[in-house]
């Protein structure tokens, strides 16, 4: 099977290169037969990549340990679903995953793109094929997943225990899907530049694909946070680790684009900025892949060092130079159609939103690269950690949160005093009320009060929008409240989906403040001994160590330490945290022992228990207990965010014409609302 897989990679390389060269030669422009060849080459590459992927999966499932990749990431006793995920668990397999998914996305993009933009497709094909060819080359010349060993081990090494987690089955592919699908909007942008089609139409195709990758990337990031929380055992979900930052960077620039593109659609402004954002997003996604694989920046998540990094660096530089040069040559044709008329306008709010998002992205990039930069400039490596990122990003994030409430409600062009009063009286009042409540409650942390009050302000704007929309529909169409709500959302998916996303964001912001109140305690306990901890809400936990038991499970030896939990004297059950030593099918240990934390989650706080080991093999156990307030709201917020994103991109909700119509309809609802 590896022979077939290898062969398929070569076939895909040749067809992909041929298609890309033909595409960029431009010869197809008055030769429909050549145009068809370019289009079909994309399907052929996808088919070949699917053959290659199936042969790797066959090798994984057949336990063909003569294949180095299979031996390195699976073992006979590995559960089936982890064999599936072993496909992308290692460097080489994830490169194959990337290439196959991109070639499939490129095919789907060709199939789904409407005839209106069909003349962009051959160039789109050229760009996507170039990227696929790059990934295939990396595999063939540096990291071949079909590499055979000189011998056949009797069993494989197995999957890293930290990857043996349900979240980890889904987290990397979601993140990859997000990273990979960014190539499609990038390809459309480059195609539009190449064809000199600078009208506003092509931006629709780009926006829809950007939304798709935004949703995937959001899911990937939230799952990654969840995995870090459940599996890494340090008690938090975001450490500003370089690899985490790398996934956040394209998300930030994409979010900026999704906002500023509205300005281009409505007012014909910011065209250059939008193209630059799409290019930057693509480059950042490649950059993220580069730093996870090259080992240039130390990170707990990174693959080990390999020369694959040089390939990525070269590709990153080439793609950056070529695409910005292309943008530069088309600069005059991207002249804005309108000028900013007032600072009190939606345009201005969106511009500031973009500046803040890009500012955050820049500071995150700067902090991530700082060790390298400082070493290059000053000769000593200086690292910055969470204190740096929090210091810079907390104020910027709060500014952004405020704009989340202002942007959608303020009028286009120039807001009148009447507009401001009508739109903001209730939300601002609501925010102030919440701030006052917190102050009375004894809260004194400035940033926490500000974050929660701004969250309330944003929630107020969203509630007001839904309320007014429903009321207007009831008045105009005589619908019941649920029917009015349903139709309101269904007919304005983009608008109300966006509001739902904003609610998800504000839930996460409020949840982040909980981390300011986390409580930690380390203790060494003999069976029967207990320790008490005060919750930030005032309750007292009593934690009693019951004992340590040992047993064998499927592919591991487990030591489980049990803790009995009581809150203010009320029993809350027994929590079990484990140390696991994974073994292969011959009972030999593989990997270092790993920790399985015990978590009891609630709406208010999580109790998080790490069993760190025993004293000299006795039942005396070393524990770390942590109380993490509001963590659940991060996950709930993430779910709301993703649902909102899906709502926004749900097909049928409207292209650009529809948007205009709903905007007009919105004006009507406003007039309806005013009449009260």
């Amino acid at each position: 099977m590896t022979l077939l897989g290898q062969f398929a990679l070569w076939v895909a390389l040749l067809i992909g290169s041929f298609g890309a060269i033909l595409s960029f030669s431009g010869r197809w422009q008055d030769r429909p037969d050549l145009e068809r060849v370019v289009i079909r080459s994309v399907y052929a590459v996808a088919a070949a990549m699917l053959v290659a992927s199936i042969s790797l999966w066959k090798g994984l499932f057949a336990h063909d340990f003569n294949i180095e990749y299979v031996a390195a990431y699976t073992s006979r006793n590995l559960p089936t679903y982890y064999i599936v995920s072993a496909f992308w668990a290692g460097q080489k397999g994830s490169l194959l995953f990337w290439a196959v998914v991109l070639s499939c996305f490129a095919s789907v993009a060709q199939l789904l793109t409407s005839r209106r933009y069909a003349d962009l497709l051959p160039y789109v094909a050229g760009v996507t094929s170039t990227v696929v060819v790059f990934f295939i080359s990396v595999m063939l010349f540096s990291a071949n997943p079909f590499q055979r060993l000189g011998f056949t081990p009797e069993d494989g090494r197995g999957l890293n225990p930290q990857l043996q987690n349900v979240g980890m089955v889904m987290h990397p592919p979601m993140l990859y899907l997000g990273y990979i699908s960014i190539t499609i909007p990038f390809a459309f942008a480059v195609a539009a530049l190449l064809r000199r089609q600078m009208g506003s139409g092509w931006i629709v195709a780009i926006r829809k694909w950007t939304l798709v990758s935004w949703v995937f990337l959001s899911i990937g990031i939230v799952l990654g946070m969840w995995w870090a929380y459940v599996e890494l055992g340090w008690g938090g979900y975001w450490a500003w680790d370089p690899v985490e930052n790398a996934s956040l960077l394209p998300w930030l620039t994409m979010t900026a684009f999704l906002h500023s593109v509205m300005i281009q659609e409505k007012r014909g402004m910011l065209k250059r900025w939008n193209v630059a954002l799409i290019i930057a997003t693509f480059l950042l996604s490649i950059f993220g892949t580069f730093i996870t694989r090259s080992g240039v920046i130390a990170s707990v998540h990174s693959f080990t060092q390999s020369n694959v990094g040089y390939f990525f660096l070269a590709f990153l530089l080439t793609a950056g130079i070529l695409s910005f040069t292309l943008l530069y040559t088309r600069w005059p044709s991207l002249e804005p159609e309108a000028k900013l008329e007032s600072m009190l306008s939606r345009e201005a709010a969106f511009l500031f939103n973009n500046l803040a998002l890009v500012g955050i992205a820049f500071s995150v990039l700067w902090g991530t690269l700082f060790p390298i930069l400082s070493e290059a400039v000053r000769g000593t490596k200086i690292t910055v950690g969470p204190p740096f990122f929090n210091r810079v990003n907390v104020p910027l994030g709060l500014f952004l949160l405020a704009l989340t409430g202002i942007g959608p409600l303020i009028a286009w062009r120039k807001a009148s005093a009447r507009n401001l009063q009508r739109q903001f009286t209730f939300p601002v009042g609501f925010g102030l009320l919440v701030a006052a409540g917190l102050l009375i409650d004894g809260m004194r942390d400035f940033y926490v009060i500000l974050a929660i009050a701004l969250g309330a302000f944003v929630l107020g704007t969203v509630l007001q929008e839904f309320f007014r929309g429903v009321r207007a529909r009831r008045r105009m169409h005589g619908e019941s409240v649920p029917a009015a709500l349903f139709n309101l959302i269904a007919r304005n998916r983009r608008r109300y989906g966006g509001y739902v996303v904003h609610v998800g964001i504000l839930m996460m912001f409020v949840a982040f403040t909980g981390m300011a109140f986390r409580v930690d305690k380390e203790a060494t306990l003999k069976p029967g001994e207990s320790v008490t901890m005060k919750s930030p809400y005032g309750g007292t936990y009593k934690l009693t160590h019951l004992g340590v038991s040992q047993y064998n499970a499927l592919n591991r030896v487990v030591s489980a330490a049990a803790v009995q939990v009581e809150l203010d004297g009320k029993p809350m059950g027994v929590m079990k945290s484990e140390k696991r030593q994974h073994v292969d099918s011959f009972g030999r240990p593989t990997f270092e022992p790993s920790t399985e934390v015990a978590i009891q989650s609630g709406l208010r706080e999580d109790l998080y228990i790490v069993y760190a080991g025993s004293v000299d093999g006795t039942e005396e156990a070393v524990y770390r207990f942590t109380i993490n307030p509001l963590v659940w709201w991060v996950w709930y917020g993430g779910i709301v965010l993703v649902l909102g994103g899906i709502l926004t991109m749900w097909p049928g909700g409207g292209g650009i014409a529809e948007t205009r119509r709903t905007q007009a309809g919105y004006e009507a609802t406003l007039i309806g609302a005013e009449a009260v």
Partner: protein
Amino acid sequence: MKPGHKFLFGAVLIVGSVSLLMFQGVKETGVYFLTPTELASKTSADPTFHNVGVKMGARVVPGSVHRDAATQTVDFQVTDGAKVYPVTYRGIVPDTFTDASDIEVVVEGRLGTDGVFHATDVLAKCGSRYEAVPKA
């Protein structure tokens, strides 16, 4: 003032405050990342450097790890091949921290005048973490 100018003013304000925040952030929270050899030369050149918090990246000397579970203290030695430092740390070390083979660690803390590195944080990175070829 034209709206364009006003916006420019706002933009400069934002960019300026981002830069200021970043500059101060680096100045106040930046931590040196040194190898044991670099740390030795820094402290011998400037004795006040003992009080500066640093991160040190090195490898654990195999067999040097002593754990005292009762006090949750771990003592070990690290080296970059040229200079060896004893390290003492109180707290829970990560799962990947073993002295079985040459593991890479990053220890954060200060070098005491007693020549012992007092760590406040230990990060371990197993060289074979994600990528490992089974030894037959």
